[in-house]
Every structure is written in structure tokens, then in C-alpha cells.
């Protein structure tokens, strides 16, 4: 079944098509949820809610842009809403975002998925969200500020602090490997 056929069938509320769509995209989207939300049960709540929105709003997808990207955006929104509801965003004081921050290169060729999740789990939710949105999702600071209801400067500070934190965690966890 092509993606277009699948989408059309879902628009007609065909249950099998909806199941297929869920099967196809839920593992990646669960991965997205798990990056933002540490607790697997809560992450799954967000996944269910997110896919509910995807399947009920699918009439609004008109082929503009990638379908997976459209789904991903809905899921990320859901994750952020969940974090906002549970008051998970506590922002450290702003540091001067124009400070020159150079990342110390980490001597690693790649990090395995499991390690990525473990590292993210160890970060506070606020940092984790900004880090995910900027580094992984590629959002700009203006978009992050809009999503999270913070100022652009706060977003920049949070990113710097998050990257520093991540550096520390990586070094602590993985040590320094020579590859």
C-alpha cells in the first residue's frame, strides 16, 4: 500500500489502515516521546494521545511536506504539552547567551541509541527539551521560544547549559575512548 493510499484510507476512518499507520510509525514516534519523557508509561500516554490526534486530524494533512514530519510535529507538541502540564520546566537563570562557548570535542565516533536515551534521561526535563528541539529536531531558537513559551535568550542559555551538561554526562558515563 502506498503512503498516499494509506493516508486516504485513514481519512475514511478505515480501522485496518489506521492500525497499519500506527504500526508503521509508532516505534519511531515512541523513540521521540522517550527522548523527551523519561518515564516509559508517561511516554506511552503521550504516544497514544499523539496518535489519537494524528488519526482524528488526518483530514488536515494535504500532502504539504513529509508525512512523517507532520506526524512528528504533532507528537512533539503532545510531549511538550505533557511536560508543561506537569510543570517540568524550571529554567535556570539566564546566562549571557553571547558568551563564547566552544564545545570541547568528545572523542567518540558514535553513540548507540540506548546510550543516547540513557544520557537524555539523566538531564533535567527543561534542558532535555531544549537540547532535543535544537540539536535533534533542528528547531531554531525562535521556534523553541514559541513552543516553550520562553524568551529567545532563555532558549539560547538553556541550550548552552544543556550542552555543557551533556558533555559532563558523556565523559562521566562513557569515559574517553580511543577509536
Amino acid at each position, binding site marked *: 500500500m502506498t503512503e498516499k493510499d494509506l493516508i486516504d484510507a485513514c481519512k475514511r476512518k478505515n480501522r485496518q489502515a489506521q492500525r497499519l499507520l500506527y504500526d508503521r510509525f509508532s516505534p519511531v514516534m515512541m523513540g521521540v516521546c522517550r527522548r523527551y519523557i523519561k518515564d516509559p508509561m508517561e511516554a*506511552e500516554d503521550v504516544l497514544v494521545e499523539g496518535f489519537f490526534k494524528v488519526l482524528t486530524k488526518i483530514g488536515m494533512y494535504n500532502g504539504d511536506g513529509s508525512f512523517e514530519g507532520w506526524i512528528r510535529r504533532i507528537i512533539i507538541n503532545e510531549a511538550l504539552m505533557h511536560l508543561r502540564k506537569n510543570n517540568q520546566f524550571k529554567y535556570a537563570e539566564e546566562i549571557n547567551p553571547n558568551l563564547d562557548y566552544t*564545545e570541547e570535542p*568528545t572523542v567518540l565516533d558514535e553513540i548507540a541509541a540506548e546510550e543516547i*536515551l540513557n544520557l537524555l534521561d539523566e538531564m533535567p526535563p527543561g534542558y532535555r527539551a531544549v537540547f532535543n528541539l535544537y540539536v535533534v529536531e533542528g528547531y531554531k531558537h525562535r521556534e523553541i521560544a514559541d513552543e516553550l513559551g520562553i524568551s529567545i535568550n532563555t532558549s539560547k542559555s538553556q541550550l548552552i547549559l544543556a*550542552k555543557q551538561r551533556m558533555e559532563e554526562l558523556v565523559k562521566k558515563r562513557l569515559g574517553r575512548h580511543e577509536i
Partner: protein
Amino acid sequence: MKTEKNISTLFQKGAERISVQPSGQAWQRLESRLEKEERRGRVVVMRWVASAAAMLVLVAAIWLWSASMQQHNFAILDAAPPQNLEDLENVDGCEPYCLVLKARAELPAYYANPVEKRN
């Protein structure tokens, strides 16, 4: 050769495609949510249809009533006018017509015995 990558690149590469299998219950929860929503949607549609049907019945009843009133009126209009005073007794608004009938009844006698014209 050492390959050094900074945090951002490492995460960018690795994190976007992370997959985690959801539990088996996730789909069931999703499905019951969908069913509840679809049932709710059907109830809304049923209510609309019921209202529309009720409106239709009301309109039909009014139309039928007005049609029957029209028929009744036409029947009255089509009927031959009453010739006798007795037929008109107790009919609303018959006074002018009663006068006409009375006059008609007395006319032959009047022409038989005309009143003297005054000079």
C-alpha cells in the same frame, strides 16, 4: 585515525531515528479512544437528523393545515349564495347580505305599490 565529533553531531546522527517498541496495550487504548470518538460523532449526526426530521414534520403539518383551510374557504366561495334569509341566520358578518336578501324579497311588493314621489 581518531575521529572526533562533538556532542551535537553525535546526537543529531543517532537520535532522530531512535525506535522504541510501544507496549501491546498502546494500540488497544488508542483503538478504544477512536471508537468512543466515532460513537460520539454518530450521536451528533443522529441529533441533527432527528431535528431535521422534526422540522420537516412540523412544516408538513402546517402546510397540510393551511391547505385544508384553503379548501374550506374555496368550498364556501364556490357554493351558490344562499337565497333564503333562514340559511344565513347566525352566520358571522351576514348583516349587509341579510339586508340585500330582505330587500330582494320585498322588491316585487314595492314595485306593485310604488310610493308616491314627493314633488
